[in-house]
């Protein structure tokens, strides 16, 4: 018998955790002498109060959906892929190469090509740690972290060397050709006089991210591969008994994971910057871990958590712009959200379970 109904597990617990994190954040904001109510209003207004704000929130969310899905898929196979950051950097490299060296006739094909290039590079970057885990038992957490650093170094090397346009002083590629530019929300949703999402970076990749959510959901719960991945994640001895090869599951799940992390690049590199810069990923790979934790590794949960973190990012930027609350403060708030939704899950779960058990008892007695 489960102690709690599913909706409580999926909705109520994250919600309570979130409220607790918000309350604690309010205290911190109070402590530095600002008004938490005002700060919250400012964040909401900045992130959700205009199509411009939404354009930023959804742009960030798109990044987080990809990296959150990446962590989730690996997590179903009980692989802790901390290498989303590096895989997304490599994805950026893949997009840059595809956009710069292949002449695309139309943005839709360029998007497809960019996505494939990004996924292949991201997957390739995850393949080496996966192989080392499967064949040598080198712990995936350690190797993926190391590969983040290697990716950063490699990108640095390429962006001050081979990929830098002659005469440029900046460690970045040149602008991608116009045919590879993706339509932004402004291009897509503005009619006649009314320009919506003006200047915001959200672009068509957001819909690719939603498609990715659906695809991951189908993969994990509807296909045989997903069945095997989850089985292996739950119990390796059982998987072996059933004839599921651990090597195959580790490799395949990490390749998919790396591919998804890499695909983030169609949003930030191809969609927004339209060139590859050194700091393109900006920690989205790590936020993906929090997003996956909070979303319970379920694509729909990941989607909601990604929107929340997009809101925190954009709202936080607004906060830094209009108040004396420093940018670092928003990192503290994010950390609190991660702490409460991920690490302190049990703190909320255990009392809530007791409440539900008590309710059930009362119902039984009444019946």
């Amino acid at each position: 018998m489960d102690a709690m109904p599913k909706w409580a597990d999926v909705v109520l617990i994250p919600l309570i955790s979130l409220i607790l994190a918000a309350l604690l954040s309010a205290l911190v904001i109070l402590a530095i002498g600002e008004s938490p109510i005002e700060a919250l209003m400012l964040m909401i207004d900045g992130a959700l109060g205009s199509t411009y704000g939404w354009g930023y929130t959804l742009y960030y969310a798109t990044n987080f959906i990809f990296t959150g899905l990446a962590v989730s898929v690996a997590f179903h196979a009980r692989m802790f892929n901390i290498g989303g950051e590096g895989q997304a950097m490599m994805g950026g490299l893949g997009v840059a190469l595809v956009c710069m060296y292949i002449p695309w006739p139309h943005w839709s094909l360029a998007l497809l090509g960019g996505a494939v290039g990004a996924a292949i590079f991201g997957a390739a970057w995850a393949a080496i740690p996966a192989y080392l885990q499967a064949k040598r038992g080198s712990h995936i957490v350690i190797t993926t972290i190391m590969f983040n650093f290697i990716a950063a170094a490699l990108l640095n090397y390429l962006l001050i060397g081979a990929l830098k346009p002659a005469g440029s002083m900046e460690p970045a590629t040149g602008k991608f050709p116009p045919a590879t530019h993706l339509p932004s929300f402004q291009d897509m949703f503005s009619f006649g006089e009314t320009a919506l999402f003006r200047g915001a970076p959200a672009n068509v990749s957001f819909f690719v991210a939603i498609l990715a959510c659906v695809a991951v959901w189908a993969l994990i719960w509807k296909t045989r591969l997903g069945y095997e991945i989850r089985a292996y994640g739950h119990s390796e001895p059982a998987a072996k008994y059933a004839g599921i090869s651990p090597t195959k599951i580790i490799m395949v799940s990490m390749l998919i994971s790396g591919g998804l992390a890499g695909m983030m690049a169609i949003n930030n590199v191809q969609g927004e910057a339209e060139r590859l810069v050194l700091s393109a990923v900006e920690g989205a790979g790590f936020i993906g871990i929090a997003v996956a934790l909070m979303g319970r590794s379920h694509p729909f949960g990941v989607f909601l958590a990604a929107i929340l973190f997009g809101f925190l990012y954009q709202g936080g930027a607004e906060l830094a712009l209009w108040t004396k609350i420093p940018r670092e403060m928003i990192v503290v708030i994010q950390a609190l959200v991660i702490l409460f939704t991920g690490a302190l899950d049990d703190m909320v779960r255990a009392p809530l379970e007791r409440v539900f058990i008590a309710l059930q008892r009362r119902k039984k007695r009444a019946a």
Partner: protein
Amino acid sequence: MTLAPAIELKDISKAFGPVQANKNISIRVMPGTIHGIIGENGAGKSTLMSILYGFYKADKGEIYIAGKKTAIPDSQSAIAAGIGMVFQHFKLVENFTVLENIVLGAEDSGLLRPSLARARRELKSLADEYELNVDPDAVVQDIGVGMQQRVEILKALYRRADILILDEPTGVLTPAEADHLFRILENLKREGKTIILITHKLREIMDATDTVSVMRRGEMTATVKTADTNPAELAELMVGRKVLLQVEKSPARVGKTILDVRNLNVTDNKGVHRVKDVSFTVKAGEILGIAGVSGNGQSELLEVLGGYEKATGTITVNGIEIDLTGAKSDGRSRRARGIAHVPEDRQREGLIMDYHAWENVAFGYHHAPEYQRGMFMNNAAIKEDTIAKMKRFDVRPPDPRLAAKSFSGGNQQKIVLAREIERNPDLLLIGQPTRGVDIGAIEFIHQQIVALRDQGKAILLVSVELEEILALSDRIAVMFDGRMMGERLPQDTDEKELGLMMAGMTKEDAA
């Protein structure tokens, strides 16, 4: 008699979340007696003893030791109150000597030497008194399980325990070792110690105890004098209905050879030689039972046949050799060759505990064409199949959407059995079919195994329960230290002879 009971529990209750593990349990154990507690898995025996030993705190109820109300908040206070516990899984430091293990945690001072010297003297007198001989300087990992258990008992006695609790003490022992254990318990009793014996084996209760309490679903259903009861009655008290303790089966109609194993050798990944030159056959329509104390190579044998352990030698099934290494030596290929496998540890291997029942019914057979629909799995078809299988195997509750972990041990086993048997295999491998299974389900599972045999299937049965081996097998082989000690027919042998073989001796050795 005005003697105070050695232990008296009054109205002990304990709940874990929604599960009421102990409900108003009262029990009196007189000093100098052996008191048995019997019940099925999950009946609450272990919880009750954990409360007595200070691992859990009872929600309500009182504990009296020798007539005095005693609070036992932790195991230190249990030891101080004179209670000693011998766990099913020993708590010994493997690379310490016997003496060091006994002193560990009960040192007299920061200096070890005087403690060890005192322990050595006391150990000698304890050994003389109770027939508890152990070499104090032997390293624990080098001595057998029977010896290790004695060390556990000595540890308790060294801490001046007057009350000794033994949790399923014979699970890992050969019959001879078990007999020796019961002699030791008799000696302890004669010296005035009180012993609580927790077991699910009716025979041990009948042989060793003075009084017995029966537990069912967290409640104490009866406490009786052992002399006034019989196994059938105890079984009925445990299950709540009449049960058949005997398996009914007709003589085997043996057909052609299905499984032929020759010179099988298994070396595990630590380099230990687990199975040594084992050869045997299983024919259609017969049950070959492999007896042996656990850890003598039977598990590895099943793993090789099931396709998840590498080996050398030759194995043929239906006359065709199967791969023992390489890509085709996995569970999927084995199933394709008509080998079904009910593994020894269903919770670790046979089931994904967090998967729904229907997902578990497809487990291992998830490549089957009837479970596919294009690029997806046909979950609706699997669910339908599950409902049918649950019905035929009387799985309760018959809800395919319930997680495997929510079923009782017996019903979990029925799910595994339904999955494997209903595939109509030529050969069924079945390990510990009734471990952790309630008596009611044991009956059903045994009937299913015999029914499959009567359909002309070959069955390889591995069990550490000699009674089960004797009741089901048409031929019996005994494994010891990775070798086959020989084969016997059930009608030509008895527990005593098999017990000797399980300890690595032949009849001639014993004579």
